[in-house]
C-alpha cells in the first residue's frame, strides 16, 4: 500500500476507534483510547485475507436468506430492493468493494444478535445449569412425561445461536435444563 494510502487508513482507523469509544458511557480515558487503537491495529494487521470470496450477489443472497428464515420477510424484500439500488451505483463516488460492505454489515449484525441472545440466556435464567453434562440424556424427558402434565407447563424454548445447533428446553416446574444436539 502506498504511503499516502497508509496514512489515510491510519487516519480512518483512528476516527473509527474514536467514534466507537465515544458511544461508551462514561467516555474512556486517554490511555484507554491508546490501548484500543493499538488493539485495533493489531486486529487489522493480523487478519489480512477474508475467508469468503468477494461476491456481492452471494453475500446479498445470504443476507436475504437469513432475514427470511428469521421470519422477517418484509425486511428481506426491503433489503433486496435496497441492494439492487446499491449495486447499481457505479462510477465516481460509488462504493467499489460493495461485497465487503455487505459482508461487514452481515457479520456485525450476527455478532450483535449473538451477544443479545447470550445475554438473555445468562442474565434472565441465572439458576439454570447451562453446562450440565447430563443434558443429553433423553430419559429425563421420558421421566418428566411420566410425572404428569406439570412437567410440560411453563416451559421455555430457547433456540441457541450456537453453530452446533443446540435446542434448549427448560422444563420450568422441574427446573430441568435439557439440551439436545439437533444435527
Amino acid at each position, binding site marked *: 500500500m502506498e504511503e499516502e494510502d497508509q496514512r489515510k487508513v491510519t487516519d480512518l482507523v483512528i476516527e473509527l476507534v474514536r467514534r*466507537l*469509544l465515544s458511544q461508551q458511557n462514561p467516555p474512556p480515558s486517554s490511555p484507554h483510547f491508546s490501548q484500543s487503537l493499538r488493539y485495533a491495529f493489531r486486529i487489522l494487521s493480523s487478519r489480512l485475507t477474508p475467508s469468503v470470496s468477494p461476491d456481492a450477489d452471494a453475500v446479498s443472497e445470504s443476507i436475504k436468506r437469513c432475514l427470511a428464515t428469521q421470519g422477517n420477510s418484509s425486511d428481506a424484500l426491503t*433489503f433486496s430492493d435496497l*441492494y439492487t439500488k446499491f449495486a447499481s451505483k457505479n462510477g465516481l463516488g460509488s462504493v467499489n468493494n460493495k461485497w465487503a460492505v455487505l459482508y461487514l454489515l452481515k*457479520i*456485525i449484525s450476527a455478532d450483535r444478535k449473538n451477544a443479545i441472545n447470550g445475554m438473555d440466556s445468562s442474565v434472565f435464567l441465572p439458576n439454570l445449569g447451562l453446562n450440565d453434562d447430563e443434558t443429553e440424556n433423553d430419559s429425563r424427558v421420558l421421566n418428566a412425561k411420566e410425572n404428569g402434565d406439570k412437567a410440560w407447563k411453563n416451559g421455555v424454548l430457547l433456540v441457541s445461536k450456537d453453530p452446533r445447533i443446540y435446542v434448549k428446553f427448560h422444563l420450568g416446574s422441574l427446573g430441568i435444563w435439557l439440551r439436545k444436539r439437533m444435527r
Partner: protein
Amino acid sequence: MEEAAKTAKESLDLAFHISNILGTGLDRHTLSVLIALCDMGLNPEALAAVVKELQTEPCPLPPTPTVPSSVP
C-alpha cells in the same frame, strides 16, 4: 464532481438503510468510515472484529505494564 458527491451520498444512504434493517447499531458517520476502510481494501472480517470489541465494552482490553490501574 457534483455527480460523484451525489452518488456517494446516495450510496451511503442505501448502506445506512441496509445497516438499520440488519440492526447493526452503527450511526451514519461510523458507517461512512467503515465503508471508506472497506474501499481501501481492509478485510471486512477484521473490521467487524474491531467493531465488536470496541462498540459496547467499556474496558475490554488486557492490562499493560505501563498503564496504572484506575480501579480503587
